[in-house]
């Protein structure tokens, strides 16, 4: 509940998850594009956003499959070279979603997998965030998830502020509103 107003959390919960309906549901045929009648059959695979899937899972109406971004293919890629995997393409909220899904799906390895991914990516990319030259930056930036970009921007902006201060300049800035000249009212 602490994240109720957090905009990143809201957008993150919009991610699509593949679920299998355990019960038949009437009147929600919209959810399944292949349903002929206005109801969803038991055992049909439907794509739902995470917030809906979570609620239905708690009521034991659906069974959640593992997300596409946590499957074997991604895991192998990350074990090969974590820093070059384009996580933003697959799932920009990789870590957050993993933290939320891990207690719901019966998969205990997600936690350590996330930790491994984060620490290897941190070592390669983020620890050099402060002094990364501007030429190098765009190449890495497109690979990072939302949370990693957050970290990166923090380092970058504080370094830029320091450099700006160092080059000097007037201590007091004239308020911009004083520079506006009024047109004489005719």
């Amino acid at each position: 509940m602490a994240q109720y107003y957090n905009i990143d959390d809201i957008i993150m919960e919009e991610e699509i998850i593949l679920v299998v309906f355990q019960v038949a549901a009437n009147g929600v045929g919209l959810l399944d594009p292949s349903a002929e009648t206005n109801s969803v059959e038991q055992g049909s695979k439907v794509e739902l956003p995470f917030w809906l899937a979570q609620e239905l899972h708690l009521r034991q109406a659906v069974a959640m499959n593992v997300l596409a971004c946590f499957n074997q293919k991604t895991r192998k890629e990350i074990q090969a070279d974590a820093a070059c995997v384009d996580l933003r393409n697959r799932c920009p909220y990789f870590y957050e979603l993993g933290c939320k899904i891990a207690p719901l799906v019966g998969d205990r390895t997600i936690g350590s997998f996330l930790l491994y991914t984060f620490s290897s990516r941190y070592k390669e990319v983020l620890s050099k965030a402060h002094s990364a030259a501007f030429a190098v930056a765009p190449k890495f930036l497109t690979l990072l998830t939302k949370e990693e970009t957050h970290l990166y921007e923090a380092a970058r902006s504080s370094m830029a502020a320091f450099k700006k201060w160092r080059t000097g300049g007037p201590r007091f800035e004239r308020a911009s509103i004083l520079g506006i000249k009024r047109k004489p009212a005719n």
Partner: protein
Amino acid sequence: MAGQSDPHLSLFSAAEVEFLAEDETLEIVPNMKMDALNFICGDYGPFYPQITIEVPLWLAVALKKRGKCTIRPPQWMSVEKLTQVLEAERDSPREFQPLPFHYVEISRLLFDHARDDIPDMYMVRSLIEDIRNVRFHKVETGLETISARTHAVKLKNLSAMEVNIVRPFVVRTLQAFYKHDSPQMIQHPDRMANRQPQVADRGPRRDLRRR
């Protein structure tokens, strides 16, 4: 703290750190006679020509701007001392040399306002730049060693401006690592049945810098 301009980032702006640095005292040599100045923060005693007196930096800069004094550069700002510090920084790859906490800000203010009072100004300036680069490089290599088992990061002898630069990044990194390493996330496969809360063993305490 009241001085934070961007509370979301928990960052002091560079100008705010400079403002805090201006409380450091240094010596000036006035060239006029003036009575004692009484401020809320203290009294700065009657000024006689050619008699050295210790004042805070903000007062020294203000008097200098009005042409009423010359500033004596602090002890650590001589070419010999700075060369020594630079050599020591380059020789010890994991330790920082003790330097005044606000050396970056003090040196910048003195270069801007008291250029002619510092002997060998260009040499001193380039030395301080080199020292700053070497120290920041050490900070960055140290940052790479933060891993999941890090509780806290200890950096001895780091100056105010350097701390200010790395503060938001380090805080967020430690938070992210903590979130991923919490005991709920890393579960042993055979403990699925009974979910007792278990204190995670985080390993021995390890400092970023050796003592």
